[in-house]
């Protein structure tokens, strides 16, 4: 959820799609043609993508159809895909394959026993093409269920090159450098950091990037499973850094709680720039292109999230994993195809796509910026999945979720780091369903 740009009017769209798909009115179901091994079989795939992203994915599915002779029907569920899946499951007719952004939801589905374990060619393709981290992320209770088809790099800060030139600064590599650069940008009067606090998911990504660098990967994993409390000193330290930066003189724009993410992109890369930097994932590039004022790679560039206290290169990531509901041979064949370098290359060449496939050559990416984004993701020593997507939905996964709400009030300068940590812990105890005692016994993470 937290990785998605499109929010808001989704429920209505999802409902409309539900009706359309129930009545079989969706376009894009080409007659299964071809003479491949799977000729005559049909696979239904559900994902959140619409518009250009849907068209790009369709091209990959078309290649699968040509290769195998099976026909693939695509259903878009919008941001409320889990709700769509639940109703289809209740009706006894789930799609064959779905691409899901929340590992927590996948774990819930796997434990309900509605997912098919990946076996045979699909499992072999995953083992051959994916680094251990991504295999692990697709595994629930020791069984492989998912393959990460599309991933995101959520550890980049985008900036306006003309602002940096005017102020005479270069992309910072460490946290103190970021503070100094922000200061110089403020002195030059060219705008500083845009923090779109009206969207809570942006703030969770701020925290996650700092926390991964301050506390390290082990603590990050423990916190995601709520095995250490949110009152842990590492959390308080991270929050102190966050507070320090957010309250630095003129470091962020006025009234951040009123600024939405899409507006923030326009505030930095639009026709009336008010800020010079924006922290968010690789998908900012698509928004910049949509505005059309500056060119990605020209007037808009990015730098990796700076190192804190000498931390190694680290990336917070998110991604959509393909899971199988019906273990039909065609569905498994599709998974094997999605896990192959060929499918990744097909998707990559259309732009706006990063892959975790280690056998995908960097040359598959169409432009240098995408290549750099992929590079920083694959070369990072530490890669961790978006923490808020790993927690229960009530804690990290939507409007009014505890972590979103509390970080917003923190950005609004209510309460100190220790106080926020205590509030987060109280909310986590409630939302994770299990209280972790002072003895720090392992708690049941994730789903309820």
């Amino acid at each position, binding site marked *: 959820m937290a990785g998605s740009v499109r929010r808001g009017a989704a429920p209505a769209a999802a409902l409309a799609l539900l009706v359309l798909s129930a009545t079989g009115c969706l376009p894009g179901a080409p007659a299964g043609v071809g003479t491949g091994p799977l000729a005559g079989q049909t696979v239904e795939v559900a994902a959140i993508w619409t518009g250009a992203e849907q068209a790009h994915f369709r091209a990959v599915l078309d290649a699968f159809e040509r290769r195998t002779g099976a026909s693939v029907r695509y259903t878009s569920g919008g941001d409320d895909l889990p709700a769509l899946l639940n109703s289809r499951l209740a009706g006894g007719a789930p799609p064959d394959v779905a691409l899901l952004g929340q590992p927590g939801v996948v774990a819930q589905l796997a434990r309900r026993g509605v997912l098919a374990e990946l076996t045979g060619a699909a499992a072999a393709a995953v083992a051959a093409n994916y680094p251990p981290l991504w295999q692990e992320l697709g595994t629930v209770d020791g069984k492989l269920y998912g393959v990460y088809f599309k991933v995101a790099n959520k550890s980049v800060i985008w900036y306006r090159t003309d602002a940096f030139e005017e102020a005479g600064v270069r992309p910072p590599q460490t946290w103190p450098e970021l503070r100094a650069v922000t200061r110089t940008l403020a002195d030059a009067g060219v705008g500083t950091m845009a923090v779109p606090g009206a969207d809570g998911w942006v703030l969770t990504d701020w925290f996650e990037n700092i926390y991964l660098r301050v506390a390290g990967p082990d603590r990050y994993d423990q916190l995601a499973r709520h095995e250490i409390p949110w009152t842990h000193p590492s959390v308080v330290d991270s929050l102190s850094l966050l507070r320090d930066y957010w309250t630095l003189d003129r470091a962020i724009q006025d009234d951040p709680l009123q600024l939405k993410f899409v507006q923030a992109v326009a505030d930095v890369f639009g026709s009336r720039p008010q800020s010079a930097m924006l922290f968010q994932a690789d998908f900012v590039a698509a928004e910049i292109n949509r505005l059309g004022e500056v060119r990605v790679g020209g007037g808009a560039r990015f730098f990796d999230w700076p190192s804190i206290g000498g931390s190694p290169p680290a990336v917070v990531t998110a991604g959509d994993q393909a899971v199988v509901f019906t273990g039909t041979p065609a569905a498994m064949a599709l998974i094997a195809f999605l896990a192959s370098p060929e499918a990744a290359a097909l998707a990559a060449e259309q732009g706006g796509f990063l892959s975790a496939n280690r056998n995908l050559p960097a040359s598959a990416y169409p432009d240098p910026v995408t290549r750099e984004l992929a590079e920083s993701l694959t070369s990072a020593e530490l890669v961790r999945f978006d923490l808020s997507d790993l927690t229960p939905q009530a804690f990290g996964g939507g409007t009014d979720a505890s972590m979103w709400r509390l970080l917003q009030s923190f950005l609004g300068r209510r309460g100190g780091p220790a106080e926020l940590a205590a509030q987060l812990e109280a909310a986590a105890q409630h939302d994770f369903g299990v209280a972790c005692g002072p003895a720090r016994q392992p708690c049941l993470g994730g789903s*309820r």
Partner: protein
Amino acid sequence: MSPARRHRWTAAAFLAPALLVLCTLVAYPIGYTVWLSLHSPDGSRFVGVANYVEMFTAPDTRRALTNNAIWVVVAPTVVTVLGLMFAVLTERVRLVNAFRLALFMPMAISFLAAGVTFRLVYDEDPNRGMLNAAIVAVHDSFSPPSPYPGATVREGSGLVASDDGTITTGVPVTAGEPASLPLVGLPVDALPAAAEPARPPAAGPGIRGVVWRDFLRGGAGRAGLVDPGELGLPGVVVQVVRSGEVVAETRTDASGQFAVPELAGGGYSVRLAAGNFTEPFRGLTWLGPGLVTPAIIGSYIWVWAGFAMVVISAGLASIPREAVESARVDGATEWQVLRLVTIPLVRPVTVVVAVTLGINVLKIFDLVLVLAPEPAQAEANVLGLEQYHASFTQLNAGLGSALAVLLFTLVLPGMAWRARVLRRHQVVP
């Protein structure tokens, strides 16, 4: 079988389908909701009234209850009064129907679309938000914005920026020794076209100095020193202060120089007035914590005023002409006719409109969800929204159902009253 008995059977046969629909679609959901409200979040455990206790003790719900009370009092009253005004006034204008159509049009828009529209109206940034653009335009025509908003002192320059917005020299200034006042934080295009390159202050009689933008493209300049290419700030109001009193006031010239030649001696300080730097007026934060509920009520009024007008107009059309005309013949003024004849005669209709809106307002949900930005949703909370969040964000069906039961109980009296009125008067709004 007696005829009466047969009659009863026939009646029952005819009523059965309707009864069945009522039971499955109305009675059963109500019963199930009450059952859920007495159980744990996933419906597995009986918890008694625990959900109700949680509901009335949680601060979120208390805020929602307060807001609902505000909504119920304010929204129907304002809408009804506006509707009455429009109805009376439109009776007298030409092109009545065009006017009424325009007022009624918002009713054709869903709350979702109205919410999105008003998001744009209420946007805080005057470049985006229509309302703030208007307010800022009016404000700036009365008090023009300051020349150098956002300018501040160069770090390490010895200048002191006070909380009241003034910038003062940190060390005493003596006549004959020029003062340097380097400022930063201004984009180069914020300087007037008349600004000339700053010169290092020349020695001379009296208190003098230079105020300039101490930043060169690429950050090349030396801090606190006038470098070639740095521009002076023209028109800055400079005050010379001695023991707390302003002894002279002047303005800088095109190259940022100022001088008060007649002053002699030492112990002065040079102060740049706050008016030079005040941030421009940016309008109000409509969707911030303070104003969010009134702002959303405003958009609700926009949607519903037309409805109230149309219904009250219908009521107006049905009042006896003779009453109004005889009042006029008796010499009543138009105001008296309105107050003593028209309004009393149309009162039953206005009451029905107000109660209908009251019921409608209790259930308000979509407008708040769409219009209130995430951080302000706690402040804008209403029972409907709280019920949604409890059920679908926190996945707590028990608490959500308890809220639904509360909402249902609150709506009941209005519904009962309205059903009675409908039966008695056959007023159909």
